[in-house]
């Protein structure tokens, strides 16, 4: 790890000011991803501003009926929060499908959004990677790309966003509140992460120095008909090869509203608005689910060793839609496979 200086911010304004005053600085929340990347010399901040103990850890109801998730609330506290379990069980299940208990006890909500990709080449300083070193090339295209993306990729980068929590958030569509040198603003979750295009070094649309302060969930939580389905190489504590988050509203057997997002397949949590439109007004049948799943992966591109993800995603979408329509998955104290 390269040397750096460190300070602990006392409030949001102090954090923003401190970061702006140090070239090459970074905020650190839980640090479970950042410190790992610093050990690998992938990230080399000259100064860290600790924001983990700012007063941003509350989970509280909003006047509009929504729920505010503080940026420094841990993933564990968020998943096991009674309001989250009762009103947003999709989020409860997605968070508990990710990482390990030790990591979830430290990792923050803001930090979850800021995770970097787990593409092998991003971590391997001996190989070209456009995300790590812009302009150097993409080693995953034509290389080992089993974990890489199939949707929205570019010739510059086929990396995926690794989060489970963010896949549920993509379906639930919160607003991301941020503070920065130019003041406060909000970003729709859909617009927070970006596709790689020709600038894969940018994971998201935050401006320089901006700090996430909360995630504001809207009232609608799809608590009755939802599913989070995660498929991975081992049963626990592994990143998703493909994951699917579904939220449905039903009138009898008819789908009246739908949310559908995928993880492990793209540079951002992949919400498919057109697939959601296709589901609305349709009967919850295998035929409907198969048609929508085929639509989602219609433009998917495999790069060799990740070709299997296209069929895996198609089948996972069908299964997750079926599970959501049946309404059998419940919030819980852990994720046991979404069966």
């Amino acid at each position, binding site marked *: *790890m390269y*040397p*750096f*200086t*460190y*300070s*602990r*911010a*006392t409030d949001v304004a*102090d*954090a923003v*000011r*401190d970061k702006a005053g*140090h*070239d090459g600085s970074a905020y*650190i929340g*839980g*640090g*479970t991803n950042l*410190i*790992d990347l*610093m*050990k690998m010399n992938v990230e080399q901040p*000259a*100064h*860290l*501003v*600790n924001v*983990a*103990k700012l007063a941003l850890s509350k989970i509280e109801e909003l006047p509009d009926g929504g729920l505010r998730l503080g940026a420094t609330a841990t993933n*564990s506290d968020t998943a*096991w929060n009674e309001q989250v379990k009762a009103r947003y069980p999709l989020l409860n299940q997605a968070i508990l499908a990710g*990482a*390990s*208990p*030790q*990591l979830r*006890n*430290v990792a923050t909500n803001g930090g979850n959004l800021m995770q970097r990709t787990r593409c092998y080449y991003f971590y391997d300083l001996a190989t070209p990677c456009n995300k790590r070193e812009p302009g150097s090339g993409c080693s995953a295209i034509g290389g080992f790309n089993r974990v890489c993306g199939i949707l929205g990729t570019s010739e510059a980068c086929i990396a995926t966003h690794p989060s489970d929590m963010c896949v549920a958030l993509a379906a639930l569509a919160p607003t991301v509140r941020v503070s920065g040198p130019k003041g406060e603003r909000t970003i729709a979750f859909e617009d927070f992460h970006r596709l790689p295009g020709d600038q894969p070094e940018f994971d998201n649309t935050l401006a320089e120095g901006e700090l996430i302060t909360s995630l504001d969930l809207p009232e609608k939580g799809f608590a009755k008909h939802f599913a989070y389905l995660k498929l991975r190489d081992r049963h*626990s*504590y592994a990143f998703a090869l493909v994951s699917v988050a579904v939220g449905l509203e039903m009138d009898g057997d008819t789908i009246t509203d739908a949310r559908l997002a995928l993880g492990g397949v793209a540079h951002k949590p992949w919400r498919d608005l057109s697939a959601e439109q296709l589901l609305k007004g349709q009967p919850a049948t295998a035929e409907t689910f198969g048609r929508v799943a085929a639509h989602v992966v219609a433009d998917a591109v495999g790069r060799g060793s990740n070709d299997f993800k296209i069929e895996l995603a198609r089948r996972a979408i069908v299964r997750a839609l079926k599970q959501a329509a049946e309404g059998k998955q419940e919030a819980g*104290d*852990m*994720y*046991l496979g979404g069966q």
Partner: protein
Amino acid sequence: MSQPLISAPASGGLPNPVPTGPVRLTINGETQTLQLAPWTSLLDALREYAHLTGTKKGCDHGQCGACTVLVNGRRINSCLTLAVMHEDDDITTIEGLGTPENLSPLQQAFVDHDAFQCGYCTPGQICSAQGLLNEGHAHSEAEIKELMSGNLCRCGAYVGILDAVKEVVDKQ
């Protein structure tokens, strides 16, 4: 104002070597001040500076759980956090859970169920299991397996580990 542990010089850039600063840590109920660089992990602070070598360094990347300790009663990977981030925290290591004469219930259960072979992962397994008990979410074997998945055992003593944790969970 923020509280810098170590300030960069006004001219910019880092002094070489970067000086250490005092970091006050409360470990197993005892508060001590260690001279640490900002990049010293909590794991290295415990082992190399507080000389509590019960906590083990396995992968040093949060993948194996050997470094698990309790911070304010919650299990965390001590390798993926900086010591300077824990000045106000109450840290418990395997040395703080029991003594050779008076083992904690989990320590006794690990002995009774032969829940280790080489023993390297054991301090992390026990601290993690203590965190699991504190959380109170695991009851069945399937739940214990899922909530112990952050701790690897290369000897494959999982059967004994599961039996040991289950016995203590059942007594709660």
